[in-house]
């Protein structure tokens, strides 16, 4: 809580900040100044475009020197002092209080400034490569064998009825596999790898296999009655205990730093932990009363 005696100090700080803003080649209040759409790039209001392929230490202030207002319909604070005020590199080195988080992200993350982790909505733990990255070109082909540092998570499989099946009736199987991202070193560079499940291969233990593009879901989630057929159900025709296995095929994409996603050649296969299913026959008998209430009742 600010005490009244600090008010003058706060006012001075605010005044300093406003004065500093006049040095900036863009208005602090208008986030729309950064426009990286097609139109924005025509208009020169996409600093990312201005900084691309320029190597390290890009001073983006120069990108605005020729513009009067940057096409932002802004507040009139822009322009004028470009080149003579604080450079964006200096501002990004200490952006606190000078830029909004969005500006900090949009502007400072375009050069090789180490402020990426400050963006509140995207806190990656890795930064963009700070040195020219030889393997980051589009010509580099990454295959699944390069992903040794990026193990895809085994998916958790389930079935119902829990652990058993009725011979002749569908038993329902499904797997909780989702898109997930890992971080680590890829060819020596900080990178992210994203795994997307694309295929599920079930082996039901009775010689049957099924390849499915859908992960399946429980009868309840599907809105189906018990023992209903589903896209991932299986019918056992014989009694016995069967070991059920699952292999999930993932498509992988990789990205160096905050660059775009590119596909990894090949498919990542991840086996899930096998589990047992007891298939038994069903018989119906007439009983005198509810066997759950009286297990020793006649017929139970």
């Amino acid at each position, binding site marked *: 809580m600010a005490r009244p005696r600090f008010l003058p100090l706060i006012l001075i700080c605010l005044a300093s900040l406003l004065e500093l803003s006049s040095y900036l080649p863009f208005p602090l209040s208008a986030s729309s100044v950064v426009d990286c759409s097609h139109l924005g790039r*025509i208009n*020169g209001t996409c600093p990312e475009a201005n900084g*691309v392929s320029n190597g390290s230490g890009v001073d983006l202030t120069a990108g605005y020197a020729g513009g009067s207002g940057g*096409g932002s319909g802004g507040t009139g604070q822009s322009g004028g002092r470009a080149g003579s005020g604080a450079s964006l590199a200096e501002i990004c080195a200490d952006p606190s209080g000078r830029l909004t988080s969005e500006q900090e992200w949009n502007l400072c993350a375009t050069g090789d400034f180490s402020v990426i982790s400050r963006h509140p909505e995207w806190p990656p733990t890795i930064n963009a490569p700070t040195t020219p990255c030889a393997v*980051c070109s589009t010509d580099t082909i990454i295959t699944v064998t390069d992903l040794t540092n990026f193990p895809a998570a085994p998916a958790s499989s389930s079935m119902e009825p829990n652990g058993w099946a009725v011979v002749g009736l569908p038993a329902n199987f499904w797997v909780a596999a989702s898109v997930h991202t890992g971080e680590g070193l890829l060819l020596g560079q900080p990178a992210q790898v994203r795994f997307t499940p694309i295929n599920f291969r079930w082996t039901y233990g009775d010689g049957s296999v099924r390849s499915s593009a859908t992960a399946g879901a429980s009868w309840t989630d599907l809105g189906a009655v018990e023992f209903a057929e589903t896209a991932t159900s299986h019918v056992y025709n014989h009694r016995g205990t069967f070991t059920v296995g699952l292999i999930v095929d993932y498509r992988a994409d990789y990205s160096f730093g905050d*660059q775009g996603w590119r596909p990894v050649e090949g498919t990542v296969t991840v086996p899930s932990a096998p589990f047992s299913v007891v298939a038994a026959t069903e018989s119906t008998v007439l009983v005198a009363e509810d066997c759950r209430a009286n297990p020793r009742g006649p017929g139970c």
Partner: protein
Amino acid sequence: MRNPSRRHSSASPMTRAARFFVAPFLAVGLLSGCLATVNPNATDPPTAAPLPEATEASPIFASNEEALAAALEAYAAYTKASDGFVTNEIDRNDLSVFETLVSPRYLPDILDGLESFSKSGRRGMGKSEFDTASIVSYADVTDGKAEVDLYLCSDYSAIRVFDANGVDVTPPDRPDRVPLQVGFVSKVSDPTKLLIDREDSWRGQDFCH
């Protein structure tokens, strides 16, 4: 309470004879019905009808080439509309064309940029181009929703920006050619039509120079 069955005790001999002959057939019929119920089909194992083939949706695009073609068509329409807006060739008060070209997620950003440019009083002259397009990825993320990513080089060298007084205000260091990674998503009403969803600068090796 009367027993209704007694009313039939006075049936004629003819009726009795008919019953005598009919009864075995009824019994056989009932028995066969019962047997069918008890043992539905001894030779046919109770397997489920094949279903995954019937339920799996076919891909929205048959190949990456088809996805690339759809994405190029969408990007060409989008850049043509944007260029037309910049050069005042389309009505700046009617931005509905962008609703058919840009995803709902990205549309607010586009409209902000268009409105801002319009207020600035600027206009452009010329036309942009793009080339060196290649597909990064195509995936049907859900039934009826495709995502396509392209690399391409966008070329702005032939389009200039002027202020209201006719002065060329094109930033002198505006890149003429920019490597982009453009993301597309399919239109809800027609999944084979793609909408622009992202336009990211490609910060890896510049493949446009």
